[in-house]
């Protein structure tokens, strides 16, 4: 089982993820229409680029925007979740060893103690994200089972990873479950709401171009996000 998960399944998951992401990004940008969106994307590439970059990086900074600052609780929970969710898959020691073996590449490695903290932060933040959905009326009204499913798919690799990390019960079972959940996550990303992993950048870039070109950028006013 372990060989299958780290062999064929791994390659399928990675392939689906990479091709899926690339295809959807291409489809997104090809589907932008200057006339329907009413943004002259190609006529003012400089202004558009500046607006896009600004719109992305401002929102990547915790408390970097009015939106983040006005709602500190969700901001802390949100970044608590997403910082770990991005860093752990890429920079955990075990993941790097695996990538080295499979692809011959490896990235910077996180301090194991810090990695533990990040992982726990992801799981605890996910708990608060669920709690928010249950408790706050303005979130509950829109929440569907699908939202919980997506959150489940997203945190399953972290929860199973922790079980394996602390060797709760059968280590090899949890390790296999962890790999399986990770692969499911990779496959789900291009086809579900998890596509925001990359479409966040596309959508933010689009609105940034809108403000950079049409809504004040070319008047010399940078949007005060």
């Amino acid at each position, binding site marked *: 089982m372990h060989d299958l998960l780290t062999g064929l399944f791994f390659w399928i998951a990675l392939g689906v993820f990479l091709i899926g992401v690339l295809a959807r990004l291409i489809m997104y940008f090809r589907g932008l229409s200057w*006339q329907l969106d009413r943004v002259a994307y190609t006529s003012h590439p400089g202004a558009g680029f500046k607006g896009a970059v600004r719109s992305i990086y401002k929102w990547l900074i915790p408390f970097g925007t009015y939106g983040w600052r006005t709602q500190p609780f969700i901001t802390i929970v949100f970044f608590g979740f997403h910082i770990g969710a991005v860093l752990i898959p890429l920079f955990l020691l075990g993941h790097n060893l695996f990538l080295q073996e499979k692809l011959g590449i490896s990235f910077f490695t996180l301090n194991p103690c810090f990695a533990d903290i990040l992982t726990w932060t992801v799981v605890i933040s996910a708990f608060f994200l669920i709690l928010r959905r249950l408790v706050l009326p303005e979130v509950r009204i829109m929440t569907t089972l699908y939202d919980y499913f997506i959150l489940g798919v997203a945190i399953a690799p972290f929860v199973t990873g922790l079980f394996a990390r602390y060797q709760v019960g059968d280590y090899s079972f949890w390790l296999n479950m962890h790999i399986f959940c990770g692969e499911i996550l990779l496959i789900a990303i291009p086809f579900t709401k998890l596509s925001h992993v990359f479409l966040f950048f596309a959508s933010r870039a689009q609105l940034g171009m809108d403000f950079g070109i049409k809504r004040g950028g070319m008047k010399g006013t940078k949007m005060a996000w």
Partner: protein
Amino acid sequence: MPEGKFCNKKPIDTAEGINELLSDTSGNNYYQEMKELDIDSDLLWKTIQNTCKSRTKTWLEICAHCGMCAESCFLYQVNGRDPKQVPAYKIQSTLGEIIKRKGKVDNQFMRDTMETAWSKCTCCNRCGTYCPHGIDTGIMFSYLRGLLYQQGFVPWELKIGAGMHRVYRAQMDVTDEDFVDTFEWMVEEYEDDYPGLTVPVDVENADIMYTVNAREVKHYPEDLAEAAILFHMAGENWTVPSKGWEQTSLAMFAGDWAACKMQVESVYEAMERLKPARMIGTECGHAHRATVIEGPYWAGRKNGQPPAESIHYVEWLAEALNTGKLKIDPSKRIKELVTLQDSCNYIRNHGLKKATRDIIKHIVEPGYFVEMSPNKEHNYCCGGGGGFNGIGLFRKQRNIALLTKRDQILATGAKLVLAPCHNCWDAIRDLEEEYEIGIRWSFLKPIVIKMLVIPEHLKPEE
């Protein structure tokens, strides 16, 4: 009943059609007939397939249902934080549903959607600046209004308004002759006080082509005279077109995109005919948005720019004051607490916050200007934007919406509100009528005229 006599899917293209619809007082029969109006689901779905592309589809898809947009919406705040007023919920339960059901929706659904599209969103676009994913619900509501208009589910006044643009190329039944005559008459009225005051009509290659809001012609003609006086005092070489003088677009509020194109093209034709160096529009927010920001796209101009450089009145006024073309007598500056209403349409949506504040520096004694909170691009809608002011059916909801602005103004302690936007001006007038908080409100033109230093050679002979 598929198509009613008053309420149907056909746009109004004739003066008779407008009069007929106007004869149906308050749209009573119109809204009765709407209850029976059929939905052309095939057309609706086909239109969506042709026009709902990756931006909107992605917005609807990746919305995380996180609710962060809730607090950004003044209508959510002012309606007791009703979860049904959360921007994401409002759009997902209307446009999102129509798409999910591939256009197969019933009459009741469409009428509910109309209520949401015109009474729960003013297209102020504030939520778009508070969404981590950059989802601009205001833009989607504008798109949704277009779909509703196509199916005949549009508030009575806006159906008439769009028809006015189709027939008169103006938001009211003001003809080109009415416009020129009224402008000339108003200028004559002020000639004695301002010797040499004229209204140059159809002058080619002028520095400025001035465009207005039709209701100035019909209801507030002094505004035309004030514009002429200020251009005169500044020594500007200006003109007005006898055709293509109307800058507003109720068609934009209605979602009648074909009429938007007709209207804005009439102004662009005037620009092409008269070849002015610049076009300047009056103190109106949505007019600027329609003609300068969105208009180029309706007219199919790929660079997103009108044929001549086009600026808002506040940009011209700031420039005239900064360069000394207009001089203010410091002793006549405003010496009472005064606040400023930032119009969504040209502040949030065109970045002109500096121009208005430059003007303030010239006309208000230091220490007397109080910002609203929040302000600039984060200011709240006046409460009557996006057509909300003019819809009788939703007057109750509109009056609740005004409470946000009322409380913002009260918090400044100012009794005078500068409102360089027709829609905001109306909303603030209405909130005073409704809630009587003892404030005054004004456009910039009359305020500036009162404090001008009149150059010697322009003074009337004693």
